[in-house]
Every structure is written in C-alpha cells, then in structure tokens.
C-alpha cells in the first residue's frame, strides 16, 4: 500500500533508502546545497517508483549586505545535455524572504558550447527587464526554483503570498502562490512542505526536514533530492 504523501509520489521508491546528509548548516549563512536530479521512470503496483538520475544542481549562497548572491550550476540530460550557469542577486523581502534583483543565466548544450543563450535580468521599480528589451511588470516579490529552498527555510508562518517566478531564470510567470507550511509524515519522520502553484506551474513542493533543510523539491516527473549541504 502506498502511504507516501502526494507531494512525494514521484520519488516513493527513493524514499525507502534515502538518508539525508549528516551536516546541518543555517541556510541564511554562506552555504552550498547539492541536489541530485531524478526523473520518474516507472511506478509499480505497490506505489513505489523507479527513478533515473539525470543530473545535478549545485546552489551556492553568499551573504551580501541586505541580501545574497547565488551561484548556480545545473547539469541535466533532457533533449540535450543542458548546462545552466547562473548568478543571482537578491534583496531581503519581508513577504517571501528574498526577492531577485539581478541575474545572469548562461545556458548551453554540452555538445555545442559555443551556442549560448545568455539572459541578463534586472528588476527596476517593479519592472523586470530581460536583456534590456523584454519588460514584465511585477509588483510582487520575484523568485525562482533555485532560490526558494533558501527563502522558505526560515518561513514558519502560514503563507499565501503572490509572487513572480522566473522559471529557470528564463520564463517569467506572474500570479504564483505559495501555500504552507504543511506537515507531512514519511517513514515516521515529520517533514513540512510548501506548495507552489500558479500560471504555468504544476504544483511544486519544497519539502524540509526538522532541521529546516530543504531535502526534496518535487516537480512532476522531475525531483531534486538533497545529497550534500555544506558551509562555504
């Protein structure tokens, strides 16, 4: 019988033997998270799943005055062997912890490293500019899937905050909502999760353990599971 919470259905098989890293660090310090990216492959009649590792994501956070800088490297096999290299600057935001102020994404495929899509983003007075051309209005805080694990780590009060996400620092999506935290139980362990919904977003869950470490991020067919956490 599948007693896995809905949030973790796609990695039900992985949960059987998952051991979180031993280290604990405060996510508002200089630190680095390393996730393995899993792709759901098959669900068995007992509800357990097979998942296929398809990449890694490393997110390094450095405290800055009134905010933070993040350095991100994600490598994953989709239609191509894709590499995302990004730098993101955030400012503290009382509504969502941190809100993006600037970023640079350098995306390419491993087979064609000379063909790069570079997106420079800036937020000025509630306007998001991408490559100095495209402008999106955003009068809500701005985040993305690489920043939210940190921004939500110290969030304990119920949330119903509208925000804008820059998915993969490429796709601007307004009218996003965060719900939670909600408590869930896995193998006798209490976890808490935030649910992210909105335009163009199948529910995403950010799942934290009792030490407030974001150990799982589940999309739909894709999931991240925490493999390392360290101070830097």
């Amino acid at each position, binding site marked *: 019988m599948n007693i896995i919470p809905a949030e973790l259905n796609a990695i039900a098989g992985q949960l059987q033997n998952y051991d979180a890293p031993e280290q604990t660090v405060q996510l508002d310090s200089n630190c680095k998270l390393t996730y393995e990216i899993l792709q759901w492959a098959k669900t068995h009649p007992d509800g357990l799943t097979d998942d296929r590792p398809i990449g890694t994501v490393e997110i390094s956070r450095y405290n800055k005055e009134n905010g933070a800088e993040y350095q991100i490297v994600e490598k994953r096999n989709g239609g191509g062997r894709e590499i995302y290299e990004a730098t993101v600057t955030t400012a503290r935001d009382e509504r969502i912890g941190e809100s993006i102020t600037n970023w640079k994404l350098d995306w390419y495929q491993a087979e064609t490293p000379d063909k790069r899509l570079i997106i420079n983003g800036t937020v000025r007075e509630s306007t998001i500019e991408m490559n100095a051309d495209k402008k999106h209005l955003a009068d809500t805080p701005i985040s993305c899937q690489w920043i939210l694990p940190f921004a939500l780590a110290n969030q304990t009060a119920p949330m119903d905050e509208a925000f804008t996400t820059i998915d993969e620092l490429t796709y601007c999506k307004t009218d996003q909502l965060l719900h939670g935290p909600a408590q869930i139980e896995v193998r006798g362990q209490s976890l808490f999760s935030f*649910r992210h919904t909105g*335009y163009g977003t*199948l529910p995403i869950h950010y799942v934290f353990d009792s030490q407030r470490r974001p150990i799982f991020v589940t999309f739909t067919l894709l999931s991240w599971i925490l493999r390392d956490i360290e101070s830097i």
Partner: protein
Amino acid sequence: MSQPNIVFIHTDQQHHLAISAYGNSDVSTPNMDRLIAEGMSFRQSYSANPVCCPARASWYTGRMSVEHGVISNPFPIDPNLPDLGQWLTAHTDYNCIYSGKWHVTGRDVANSFDVIYDRHPYGELQDSGAARAAAQYIAEHANDTRPFFLSVGLLNPHDCCYVCGVNGPVGKYGLEPQLSDLPDLPGNFDSVLMPPNQKHRVGHWSETDWRYYIYQCYRMVETVDAQIGLIYDTLENNGLIENTLIIFTADHGEGSGHHRRVLKGFFEEEAWAVPLVISQRGSIPNGQNDSHFISGVDIPATICDYASAPPLPETTYANSLRPFLEEHDDITWRESVIGENASAIAIRDDQYKSILYDSGQHTLYDLSNDPLEKHNLASEPGFDDVKHKHATHLAEYANTVIPYSGPDKTGERDRIREERMENLKQGNGWTEEVGS
C-alpha cells in the same frame, strides 16, 4: 520584401479551447493570446489524424494518413516521400532547423533538418530546452541574409499521458483536496464514450480526480505558453517579428474529460479539433475564420507557398491558406473536412459530423444543435440526405487520394486501402446504417 522567416510552433495534445483568448477562464495563455491578437485564428481546424505520428507525418508531407502510410504511431512513413525539410532545402534558400519533438515514425529528423535540440519523451524535460535552443538560434541568426524555417516541437501538454496511467501513474494524486481552483467538468462529461482500453486507467476516477486531471492539462498548456513567449519575444527583440510568419497549432486535441475520456485518437471535437493561428505583424490581418474547414495537411501547403517553393509532390487534399491570410475575395474551398485513423474515417461539414468505424458502427452528430456531441443520431430516422451527402464526399476523397502501397508487415495498411477505401469509393460509407 524578402522571403519571410517561418517559425512553426506546435504543441502536442492541446485541446482546441485550452486558450484564454477563446474564452476559457480556467487557463491563462497570454502568449498564445498575443499571437491570436496579431494574427488569423482558424477556428474550424482539424488534425489529419488525431494521433501524434500520423498527424506529424501529414504536417511534413502534406499527405493524408492513407497516403503516407502512418495510420497510427507504430507504422513507418513511406520512405520515398519527401518531407518539408528536404523539400525546402532542395527548392529554396531556407535554412531548415528543428528543435524538440519530431516523432515521424521511420524517419530520422536529422536527415531532413538541422537539429538544434533533440527530443525527449517528457515535455517537462524537453520543452524549456527546445524553446531556449530556438531562441538561441533566432538571436544568433537574426542578421543572416538567408531566411530560416524553424520548426519547434513542444511536447506538452502531452505529459498528461503520464498522470492518467498510460505508463503507470505519476504526479501528485492525493493532492487534490488541497487545491481550491479545480476546473469544472465539461458539459458532456456524462455522455460517456470511454473506450475499454481507458477503463482500467481512469474508470475508477472520482469527479475530483477528473477535475485535477483537467487542472494539470491546463497548467501544462500554460507552461508551453510561456515557452512560446520566449520564442516570440526573441523574434521581437531581434527585429524579426514583422518578417517572420508564425504558425501555431497542435498535432491533435485531448479528451480532457469530455465524454469521460482522456488522450486522443477519436473524432469527437475534443480530440480532432486543434488550435491554429497564423500571424505576421503588419502583413496578416487580425481576425478569426470560423467558416472554413482546415486540415493539418494545409499547413505544409501554406509553408511552401510562403517559402516560394513548389507544392509538395502529389498532394491530393492540401491547400495553401495564404488566400485567407491575404483576404482574397474569391476563394474556392472544401465544404467539409475529413480525418482518418486506424479504425475509422470521419467527415464534418457546417452542421453534421459522420464517424464511420471500420467495425461497422457509425456515429452521426448534429453539431449545430448538439455541439457537445451528446446524441448519436446514426440510428434516428430522417438523416438519409446527410448520410448520402457524406458518403458522396467520402467517395470523392477515396477516389482522389493515392493510398500507400509499399511494404506492409501487419496488413493493416493493405486492409485500409483495399477494404475501407474501396468501400468508400462505392459510396458505401453509410450504406449499412441507411439501410438498417
């Protein structure tokens, strides 16, 4: 004016009304809406065959399924047929570029296009990269003197196949009670046409399960909408939007709970009808064509026309849409549209739709009075004229197409050519029902 660039963006398995500009308040598609606001919507557009591979084979050859041989996904395409990439390369100066899902059985896309991003079986892993690769290509080649034909195969909302159990259930079942904004069930939800092969997958679903399924379909549509936005913005930011013909459509629709079905492969509107929008800022008038019946094979004919290429060879059913886009006054056009798959052939006109199954079961809908297709009139008296008219159109069709006659391991294509098409030629499509 120089030859326009042509960007052909196709989604996979998108219900034709899963677009906010068409009045659907359960989905938000600002980027599709932007194309619609700038271009021409064809609101009576139909897949040549509402399954992935056959529909795509028709897009790239201009031929119907019975002609190119891909009657359903496993059947390989006639290897001798040229496809759009090969044709434009041979006859024009276009750079032919492909990003994302291809899925034409039996043909390697790399033999037809320059591939800039390969396909992956899941949209969640493919589409963002396919759109980014397209954007990268557009930006890099914005100043080229040669035009490009860029085909972008976005896979979603096709991932809905994996949340309804085609390959084992995945997703977040059990989550539904936490969501407060699930869409309502469609008006024909209780007119059940669920086929046996779907019963074990979705027959046990609660109404909330169905509503969650539809919710997910809409979120996937929105995801590809954002990706379309990246491509559009890149064209605009690089000064190409006025010299680029953008064609947006889907290979087929999606059950989405209509008739309590998921997926595709049938001829009720939810699976057969597709969105189709063509835009080019400053050249194509904004408008909506809701009176002419469009087939998927008309898209390659239109692309050849705009690329100043000769029509794809021996196409029998395809017509360029350019006269509509240039607002010609004297357009002669088909009075009905025909689709076919491995088990049936369908025809619809401005009021009626006939679906003739090879098994002998037939369906007749009066779409003017029953747009949700809740009442099968096949056995009702008083429709002999409609049946006769449809049988006549189908006979003309069967006498016009050039059926695939190559190797046929399963015999299915031989059967369709020798039994279905011969039967239609004799005007026998409706004979059993008319006489019964």
